[in-house]
């Protein structure tokens, strides 16, 4: 961690989640989705949360934002700039959400309202949250479209979402999330629905906006390669738990948890020997509601021993670097 980030970490974190548990009622059964996750995001920091479908990464932040379905039960603590927001009343939450704490969703096709013009959707955010007049809000909205690289911003203002390409729609979503000067943007798989070339542009845009606006960023993704160039800190989730947490460079250079190491091996490469078979992660992630004694990754783990099947490992720092934490009895690096 560089000195600047360390100073910031000692300040009040922008987002702090402690021991968050999320479970869903399904008939009589209770299916846990997130199990005792603690995360801290410092001002200006970019934290990536990586895991397979079903690992709980999205539910974690939906819970923090108060956006879960009615059958969800949430325990734990979520503080945004020191204020407890878990279970806060909707009027209070609505002052924070959409202004200081914003979200970009995976599918730019469905996260814009189809029957409102782009300009109206953008300006509405400022009218509602910042009390601006519509005419002021429209000017600010157009400027923001310029800043996120939407060509011909003035003309876009009067277009509908279906008239824009996927990449442009995602730029509009990013513009919308930045309008009120947020302290934290949560981006849930912001590039998964996009082409590789557009993905690279959106990642570059997020990087540039972070530099300009200085907001903290949480990046949720299933793909370690995508978050690599952007994240300061990476958390790897498996079966609802954080199994590894490290600075991005440390994670790529010496992953400690076998799951992280296996995920890294799965990234297809452009260089190096061409493989006869692509590396894969054996087995399936646990089914929702499946309870596994000991470490949940043990059934798929090449290093699993008897102890792993009996006793659940806790998140522990490495001998050389206490900030590089992994939940493994036999980490690749002690």
């Amino acid at each position: 961690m560089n000195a600047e980030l360390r100073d910031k970490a000692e300040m009040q974190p922008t987002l702090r989640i402690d021991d968050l548990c999320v479970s869903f009622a399904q008939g009589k059964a209770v299916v846990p989705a997130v199990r005792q996750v603690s995360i801290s995001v410092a001002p200006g920091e970019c934290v990536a949360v990586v895991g397979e479908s079903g690992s709980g990464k999205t539910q974690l932040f939906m819970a923090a934002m108060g956006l879960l379905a009615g059958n969800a039960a949430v325990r734990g603590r979520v503080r945004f700039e020191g204020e407890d927001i878990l279970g806060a009343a909707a009027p209070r939450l609505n002052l924070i959400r959409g202004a200081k704490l914003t979200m970009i969703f995976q599918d730019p096709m469905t996260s814009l309202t189809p029957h409102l013009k782009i300009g109206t959707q953008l300006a509405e955010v400022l009218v509602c949250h910042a009390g601006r007049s519509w005419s002021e809000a429209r000017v600010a909205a157009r400027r923001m479209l310029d800043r996120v690289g939407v060509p011909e911003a003035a003309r876009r203002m009067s277009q509908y979402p279906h008239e824009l390409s996927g990449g442009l729609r995602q730029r509009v979503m990013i513009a919308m999330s930045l309008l009120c000067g947020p302290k934290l943007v949560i981006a849930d798989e912001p590039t998964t629905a996009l082409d590789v070339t557009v993905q690279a542009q959106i990642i570059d845009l997020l990087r540039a906006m972070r530099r300009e606006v200085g907001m903290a960023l949480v990046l949720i993704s299933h793909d370690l390669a995508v978050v690599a160039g952007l994240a300061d800190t990476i958390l790897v989730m498996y079966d609802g738990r954080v199994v590894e947490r490290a600075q991005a460079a440390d994670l790529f250079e010496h992953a400690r948890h076998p799951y992280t190491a296996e995920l890294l091996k799965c990234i297809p490469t452009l260089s190096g020997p061409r493989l006869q078979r692509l590396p894969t992660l054996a087995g399936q992630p646990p089914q929702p509601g499946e309870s596994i004694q000991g470490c949940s990754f043990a059934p798929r783990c090449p290093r699993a021993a008897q102890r792993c099947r009996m006793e659940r490992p806790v998140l522990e720092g490495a001998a050389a670097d206490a900030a590089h934490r992994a939940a493994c009895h036999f980490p690749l690096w002690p």
Partner: protein
Amino acid sequence: MSPEMPASRPLSGSAPLLSVRDLWVRFGERTALCEVSFDLHAGETLGLVGESGSGKSTLARGILRLLRPSHGSVLWRGRDLLTCGSATLRALRRDLQIVFQDPLASLNPRMTVGEAIAEPLRIFEPASTARHRQERVGEMLGRVGLDARLAGRYPHEFSGGQCQRIGIARAMILGPALLICDEPVSSLDVSIQGQIVNLLLDLQRDAGTAMLFISHNLAVVRHLSHRILVMYSGRIVEIAPRDDLFGTPLHPYTRALLAAVPTGNPHNTDSPRYRAAPETIPEAIPEAGREAARETAAGGCAFRFRCPDALARCTAEIPAFEEVAPGHWVACHRSRERPHSVILPPHDTTKAGAAQRGPVQRTL
């Protein structure tokens, strides 16, 4: 440009299984596919890459006559699929199968997966008994790594990766000679992608199936293709044997695609070769410009609006599709200027973030 030219050198001396010649698809005023010609040989895997809207899926559907091309021919073992009668087409389709991108949407939600996998058998082997079909389905489920007892379940009970296995089982049950895979792994987790690609490779090896594998990610096609075909704006802009394409990408669009592949560790400098600053390739041209572009594109290279190297000549003249090395074809006026030495747009070190991408090797 001669339609015969893009024909590959046959891998063996045999005639190609599939020959696409000068294929055009128009949707009203818009041309979705133009002058597409290539060959595919038995047992060969051809990777097809390009962005959304470049015509990849249109080409796949055009080959199978799931839509009507407006011009050209698709010769399947010497017979034109576009002009043959519907009874003949139906019989030939037994050998031509496709796996779609969205695994759940391509399965009928009201059919059990067993019924879905058995359907090609019911259609093409109407004399088969229910018992026989059930056995074949069980066998096929086993081949794709699913338990035969799951045949009675419905698609929504399966994960995305499992649904894709079911789609593959359905496509492979008749032992087709050609399997077209339209972005089969794009909607799947990275950890599952490898499993599906390996499964396709196994099935291909066992059955000798030829494959047209469509993807927008070059890192995926690299591992399974013999040759790669790059499309832009409805045209093929580059065809090359795999090692040539990755070693010496000649079209600026191919190089942009390579630069855009996320390669993981930003601090690892073992693969900086293609890491041009992505800013050098702007997003697809804005819509307003597009109308004008469409009118004028007829006279020039469609990529010139985004190309870092475009010349006046690129506006005036459509580049010819030329063979610049054995089996390596490219449509770019400037391809001869960069023979076998790369070729990246100059690395702009003033752009932030460039420093952490590591040094860029400019020669190969």
